[in-house]
């Protein structure tokens, strides 16, 4: 009898049935867009919907609901009034914030998001650059019925092309924002010809967006932070001809010195295009290419470092490194120091061809 009572109690209390919800009664939120205009937050949820077509096969679809209010909590809550199902936030892939939110309101957005037990903080944060976040999340097409899934796949797959995208779980982004002497960056998107497109990265200083980079600069930043290794570099030869190399392996180290910051970048590269008169059968030619390319690479990297400096965004953790060395809480001292950049390049892959005689 005792065992039966215990079994009975177990059924009721160990199955979590008090919190139980049928899947059919859940509105699974896959993405959130947050805008801020006229002193109001506008929160848009992208909700997944499974649809059966004529052939009875199930296809994924999505729809959005949106609400405005003076604060995040009310804007979030109001959305619940526009749907007949329980909102479920455990599968959020992407949170899109508008430029205005990123510049001025991320602090408030963050407080609500990390306090909310319903939201799993492992989503990727992205910035809508020249459009509102709502516009972006509503930009679905037949090929991409769910914007958040599209953006997430774009971020993850871009890494196998040129490494201009950057993504990490939000807790890691927050970690960087909250660490003194370190700042965060996130991928920025635009809408170009009705298509959502990666445009570079957004640089933050604490909770505030301070600037953007283009795609090329973003890939160099990824090398500087050791996030990825691929970038393209182009050098001109005589008669407007050019050679392009693609880095495929890199290692960056940043050493804080008393009077300067030393950045050493070790790169391995392959030749992507060669219209210069280089005879790639000749081993010594590779040294010439390396010498030529190092100047270009140094210039490109210095431009990016200066851009980071201008925006006072410590995405390279230099302030933290100085703090670790000196234990002085002057996290911006590196901004006044010279940068010594040492690039080591090893061009050791020629790809599949040596050279083509196009004049033949």
């Amino acid at each position, binding site marked *: 009898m005792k065992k039966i009572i*215990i079994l009975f109690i177990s059924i009721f209390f160990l199955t979590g049935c*008090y*919190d139980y919800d049928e899947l059919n009664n859940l509105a699974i939120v896959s993405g959130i867009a947050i805008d801020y205009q006229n002193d109001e937050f506008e929160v848009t949820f992208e909700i997944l919907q499974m649809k059966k077509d004529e052939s009875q096969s199930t296809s994924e679809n999505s729809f959005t609901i949106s609400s405005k209010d003076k604060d995040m909590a009310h804007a979030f809550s109001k959305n619940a009034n526009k749907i007949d199902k329980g909102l479920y936030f455990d599968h959020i892939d992407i949170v899109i914030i508008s430029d205005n939110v990123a510049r001025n309101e991320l602090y408030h957005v963050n407080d609500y998001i990390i306090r909310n037990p319903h939201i799993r903080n492992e989503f990727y944060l992205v910035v809508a650059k020249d459009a509102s976040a709502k516009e972006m999340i509503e930009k679905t097409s037949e090929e991409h019925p769910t914007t958040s899934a599209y953006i997430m796949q774009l971020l993850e797959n871009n890494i196998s092309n040129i490494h201009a995208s950057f993504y990490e*779980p939000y807790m890691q982004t*927050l*970690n960087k924002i909250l*660490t*003194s002497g370190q700042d965060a960056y996130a991928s920025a998107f635009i809408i170009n010809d009705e298509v959502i497109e990666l445009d570079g990265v957004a640089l933050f200083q604490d909770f505030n967006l301070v600037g953007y980079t283009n795609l090329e600069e973003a890939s160099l930043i990824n090398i500087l932070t050791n996030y990825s290794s691929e970038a393209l570099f182009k050098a001109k030869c005589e008669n407007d001809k050019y050679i392009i190399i693609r880095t495929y392996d890199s290692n960056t180290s940043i050493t804080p010195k008393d009077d300067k910051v030393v950045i050493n970048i070790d790169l391995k590269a392959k030749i992507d295009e060669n219209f210069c008169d280089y005879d790639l059968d000749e081993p010594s030619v590779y040294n010439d290419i390396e010498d030529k390319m190092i100047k270009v690479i140094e210039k490109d990297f210095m431009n990016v470092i200066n851009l980071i400096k201008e925006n006072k965004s410590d995405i390279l953790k230099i302030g933290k490194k100085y703090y670790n060395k000196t234990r002085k809480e002057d996290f911006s001292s590196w901004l006044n120091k010279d940068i010594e950049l040492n690039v080591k390049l090893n061009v050791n892959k020629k790809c599949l061809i040596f050279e083509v005689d196009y004049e033949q």
Partner: protein
Amino acid sequence: MNSNKTSYFLTRGMFLGVGISLLFKMTGKDTYIAAIIGLILGLLFNLLVAYIVSKKTSLNELLKGKLGIVCKIIILLVSIIIFMYSLMIFAIFTTSFLLIKSPEIYTIIPLVVFSILLAFKGLDNIKKVSNCIFIISILLLLFSIIGTFGYFDLENITPIFTADIKSTVKAALLFFGATTLPNILTLHLDMNFKDYIKNYIIGSISIILVIFVTSGVFCNALLHTLRYPEYTVLKQITLFGFIEKIENILASVYLFDSFITCTMSIYSIKFFMPKKKNKYFTVGIILVLIYILQKFFFTNYKNELAFSFKVMPYISIIVSIILIIPLIYLIKKKKHQ
């Protein structure tokens, strides 16, 4: 297997949600240093506890005379406090992450029922269950630590020794108290000296490893901010890159700790009840305690916070020290007889 792993769980019993986050609040990323100091301090002290546990023949024989009765009352009060505390941290944890809508009282019912069942079955069964879940606990813990190491960033824990001495000493004392107080309940067990110390060291080191890994994943500010850093860190873990959201399985190690701690405290309460109908007395006390929890703590977060963060740390340190002195005296006295 002769060893008894119950004290491993008791050593860890006070850490979920309160112990670790309170330590982080005090010393931030240097918490693991404070915890190591606390372990050394605790080890010195627990040598005495181990000595008492291994030398006593039976607790009833040891706790004789006026001093014995005083000790009995203190141990009974300790058992009640630990019981309430373990239920409280279990309820806060489950209603914060797992069963958000459920009332706290619902979430503790299965824990209490199974703990009563096991406690009433006696020490042999507690030992068997402890030994079984010890292996699961260690495996899950190792998996958690290895899984989070990918997110470990040395920058998060450097530079070291940034916390002030006062905070470090306070955190070390708290670690000592939190690992020692529940171990008072091992007085009921028949354990040898080596086993006790081994369990204490393994339990403490497992907590220090969790603290160290969490400090390496989250920055100082997040360690101060998060209510459950030791759980939040588990959210990062993915298996083979595609199996995600396994944090609740991994977090069950903390629930095992609460379960054994709760069971031992119920056993201890039962032990001090009059022999006749001690089960009824125990269940009666448990019901009263649950009523108190529901009335004053589950429905009032301020009381819960004050008890967990303000009162309990002091109780754990002071009671551990106060209780051990008369016990040493009693065991020496018995030895001379």
